[in-house]
């Protein structure tokens, strides 16, 4: 297994409203309705992502600043438990090399090749979720093989249309809905994708890259273009977990259902035939992207789900 030195903790606060403050670099979580002796203390540097989802939460300035200084990301949830904002740390200039120039200088052909790799990985992941429909599984694998540079033929949309129709099985007609008021299982997908996006954005910033400079997505009002590119291979992983929760009757975003989605970040995945936690594979993928920007590589290290390994991806 790879070095696990980079496993960070995920903290989610939604059940009991609390006041968050910091003392001696430790995040203190003091529930509003409980005596002071019951406060929890977590080292800020151990926190990867803090998700806050209670209307009555309060925060001290130091809590926000200290978390950011240690590279932690804070996701603030609004209505329907949907992430409304992502607070990303600005990487410390002395510790990290800014690679903006490399990002801007990337050649168009390389950009298109990298996007091709991301789309291929996504479609293969979708195929891997269709164990109940071997025909469609084969079809998607063929589509993945034929993705062109820049996905000129828009294989992504083609595959998605087929995938969503059969993803939950023939007895569950399904239509993808990104709205914050979406019904199950779309609510689970939206939440899972948002968490993944925040985790990826954190890794991007930590590597000195600008999250708004994408490979494929390039909307001027989207601060997360690059995160939206890199998330593609991880979507099928979220889908799989969301489907499992949905089919075991965990359809509303209770804390326990959210936990089911948050645990994904620590799930084992395979990267270059080695096993490790998903959140670390994100960091490795971003490192491989940095090598591409630097010109020493033309391919991304993209993780796969454990069961994809046995069937040759």
């Amino acid at each position, binding site marked *: 297994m790879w070095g696990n030195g980079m496993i960070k*903790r995920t903290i989610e606060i939604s059940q*009991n409203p609390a006041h968050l403050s910091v003392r001696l670099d430790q995040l203190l979580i003091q529930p509003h309705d409980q005596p002071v002796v019951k406060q929890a203390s977590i080292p800020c540097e151990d926190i990867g992502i803090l998700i806050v989802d209670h209307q009555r939460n309060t925060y001290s300035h130091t809590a926000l600043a200290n978390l950011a200084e240690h590279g932690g990301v804070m996701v603030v949830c609004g209505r329907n438990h949907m992430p409304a904002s992502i607070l990303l740390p600005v990487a410390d200039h002395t510790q990290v090399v800014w690679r903006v120039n490399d990002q801007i200088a990337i050649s168009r052909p390389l950009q298109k090749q990298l996007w091709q790799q991301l789309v291929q990985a996504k479609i293969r992941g979708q195929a891997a979720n269709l164990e109940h429909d071997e025909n469609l599984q084969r079809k998607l694998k063929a589509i993945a093989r034929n993705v062109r540079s820049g996905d000129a033929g828009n294989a992504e949309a083609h595959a998605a249309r087929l995938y969503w129709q059969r993803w939950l099985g023939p007895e569950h007609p399904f239509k993808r809905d990104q709205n914050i008021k979406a019904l199950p299982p779309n609510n689970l997908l939206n939440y899972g994708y948002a968490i993944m996006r925040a985790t990826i954005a954190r890794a991007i910033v930590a590597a000195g890259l600008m999250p708004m400079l994408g490979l494929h997505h390039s909307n001027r009002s989207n601060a997360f273009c690059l995160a939206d590119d890199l998330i593609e291979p991880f979507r099928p992983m979220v889908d799989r977990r969301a489907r499992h929760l949905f089919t075991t009757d965990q359809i509303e975003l209770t804390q326990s259902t959210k936990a089911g989605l948050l645990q994904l970040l620590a799930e084992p995945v395979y990267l270059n035939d080695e096993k490790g936690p998903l959140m670390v594979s994100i960091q490795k993928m971003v490192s491989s992207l940095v090598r591409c920007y630097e010109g020493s590589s033309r391919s991304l290290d993209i993780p796969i789900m454990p069961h994809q390994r046995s069937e040759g991806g």
Partner: protein
Amino acid sequence: MQITGYRCMWVLTMFDLPTDTKPARRQYTQFRKVLLKDGFTMMQYSVYIRHCASRENANVHVQRIELNIPPDGEVRIILITDKQFERMRIFWGKRRKPPEQPPQQLELF
């Protein structure tokens, strides 16, 4: 939910520092503050522990402590695995207590 298969470690820092003079007490307070800022919690007087998600991470914290050893007194640092730690037997008066639970990767409040 534990990340099974990954080697979580506890770092134990034990110290014996003089507190007979004012400068000595200042050293003690400062060292204690270093430990607290680094995420250690007091298990007993002069015995502090920190849970780390991996051996590499544990070594980072060990190195930090080593850089801040006070000039007088004795400091001991040892790494213990989760498995070893959970076998610790704790006696409180005549009653037994279980050892501290390792923190989970995912924590809900």
